[in-house]
């Protein structure tokens, strides 16, 4: 009886592993399959063909797409986290009348889905002259609710004496934030940054809407472009470009998986 259930459990474990991993495996193998074999079924690639990567790199300005994705992701994440830190500090440590009401107003913004704001935000950045600019891609997405919420929850657990001591020493709030609170919140800050990086790297619909030229497009948008052309689609190249998008995230994930998992699942356990 006992060994049987144990065996069953391990079978379950393997099934979960295979189901989760196979699409990733499929991506990698298809991306190295030559175009004439790509429409045949094969469990394992018979030969490894790097031509797709060359084609993919040639069929879209990938260097530019990569540069844009990196800039948009890093700048966006950085600004978003700074914004979040400032406001979370205010909510955790500063006095204000009706502070809770203001806080609820902030949290309410989380209920506004991305699709709903798409067209109005496009018209807004159009009015600001921000179409096809980094500002246009980045700024509408850097307002922060979730990161602010997580950081505030964390800051409220910090021992009060520490911030008080700093203030008695004559430090102002910015100094307290920078010298005391931030160092003590480092794991949470890292979590929030990594989550923001992953989200912005994968973001698709907003860069699609807010750009119209290759010199400003990001990787996911560029990938759609390779597919969406009159005539024909080089699927090998499309797969290779998918690898360009997925691999950096996989690398970041395996380095910082603890932070990412903690950040993305935090709403359930915190608060």
């Amino acid at each position, binding site marked *: 009886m006992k060994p049987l259930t144990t065996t069953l459990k391990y079978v379950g474990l393997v099934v979960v592993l295979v189901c989760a991993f196979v699409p990733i495996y499929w991506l990698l193998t298809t991306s190295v399959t030559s175009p004439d074999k790509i429409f045949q079924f094969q469990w394992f690639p018979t030969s490894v063909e790097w031509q797709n990567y060359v084609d993919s790199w040639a069929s879209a300005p990938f260097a530019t797409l990569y540069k844009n994705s990196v800039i948009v992701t890093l700048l966006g994440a950085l600004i978003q986290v700074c914004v979040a830190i400032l406001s979370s500090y205010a909510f955790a440590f500063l006095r204000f009348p009706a502070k809770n009401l203001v806080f609820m107003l902030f949290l309410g913004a989380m209920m506004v889905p991305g699709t709903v*704001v798409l067209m109005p935000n496009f018209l807004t950045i159009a009015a600001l002259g921000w179409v096809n600019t980094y500002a246009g891609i980045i700024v509408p997405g850097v307002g922060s609710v979730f990161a602010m919420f997580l950081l505030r929850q964390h800051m409220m657990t910090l021992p009060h004496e520490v911030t008080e001591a700093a203030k008695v020493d004559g430090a102002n*709030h910015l100094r307290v934030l920078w010298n005391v609170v931030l160092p003590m919140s480092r794991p949470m800050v890292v979590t929030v940054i990594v989550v923001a990086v992953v989200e912005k790297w994968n973001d698709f619909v907003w860069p699609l809407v807010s750009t119209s030229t290759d010199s400003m497009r990001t990787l996911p948008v560029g990938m759609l472009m390779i597919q969406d052309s009159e005539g024909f689609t080089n699927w090998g190249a499309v797969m290779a470009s998918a690898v360009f998008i997925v691999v950096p995230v996989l690398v970041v994930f395996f380095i910082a998986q603890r932070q990412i998992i903690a950040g993305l699942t935090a709403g*359930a356990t915190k608060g």
Partner: protein
Amino acid sequence: MTVTDRSSAAPADAADPPTRGTPASPRRRRRREYLLFLAFIAPNAVLLAVFAYWPIVFNGYLSLTSWDMLSPTIPFVGLANYADMFGDPDFWAVLGRTVLFSGAVVIGCLIAGLAVAMLLNQKLVGRNLVRTVSFAPHILSGVAMGTVWLFIFDPQIGLMKVVLEKVGIAGPAWMTDSSWAMWGLVLVYLWKNIGFVAVVYMAGLQGMPTDLYEAARLDGAGPWTLFRRITLPLLSPVTFFVTVVTIVGTFQAFDVIAIMTNGGPGDATTTISWYIYKQAFQALDAGHAGAGALVMFVILIAITAAQARFMERRVHYR
């Protein structure tokens, strides 16, 4: 998530520093602190006001117009767009489809996610690896992985066809079959979310009080009773969180649909968010896009509020 916070928002004031000890004008000090508070929240407040709240108002305005984004004038049409939408069986079909899609993904995720969580909660060799790998799909680009899934669902050369054939089933044409395309998308979303849900549930399972189980076991409760009477009720806050997150996520499903089906074949996979995008940026019909956006917003608010009420009762019950 709004709701999970409500309990914890109260102690915020406890963080207020004590004011005693400073003889010079506590009122001025307080004023300065208020100003500082405003300065600190100002960037976020402006961003959220402009890019999250203002769009709601703006949608409200657009929804009362009939504008093709090309003509120089914006004709005001009153509630005509709403009348048109709610009188159109196709729009009701969009709503129904969205609910079906969302419901299927939520239920699938809850069941499979909990099962995986309970499996991973056992002391098994390699469970950390499985946990990591099964979580990974959650953070991979929908555009990139959607393309892979297109290949997997290919009716001739797809992995799905080959696997189904091995067990003696002739697979459907998936993405080019009106009655199967939606279920294909459901599978992709399950793949993306089960690992995530499982990890959330694991956190919940690890926080379980073991003494409760001991006591129940002494009373002669079997594993099924333990699961139903203790595990499930204790996990209900987690279930609530997962449900809300997954509903919001599926209502917003966009990148996978854009890459895999474009809302088709026919309108078989046109959910509310694709509908809004299509009205706005393909049909260039700002009025219907605005009206659709508001309807989606109201539905999400209603679902979350209803869920919160329901869960409050459930949580108290334990």
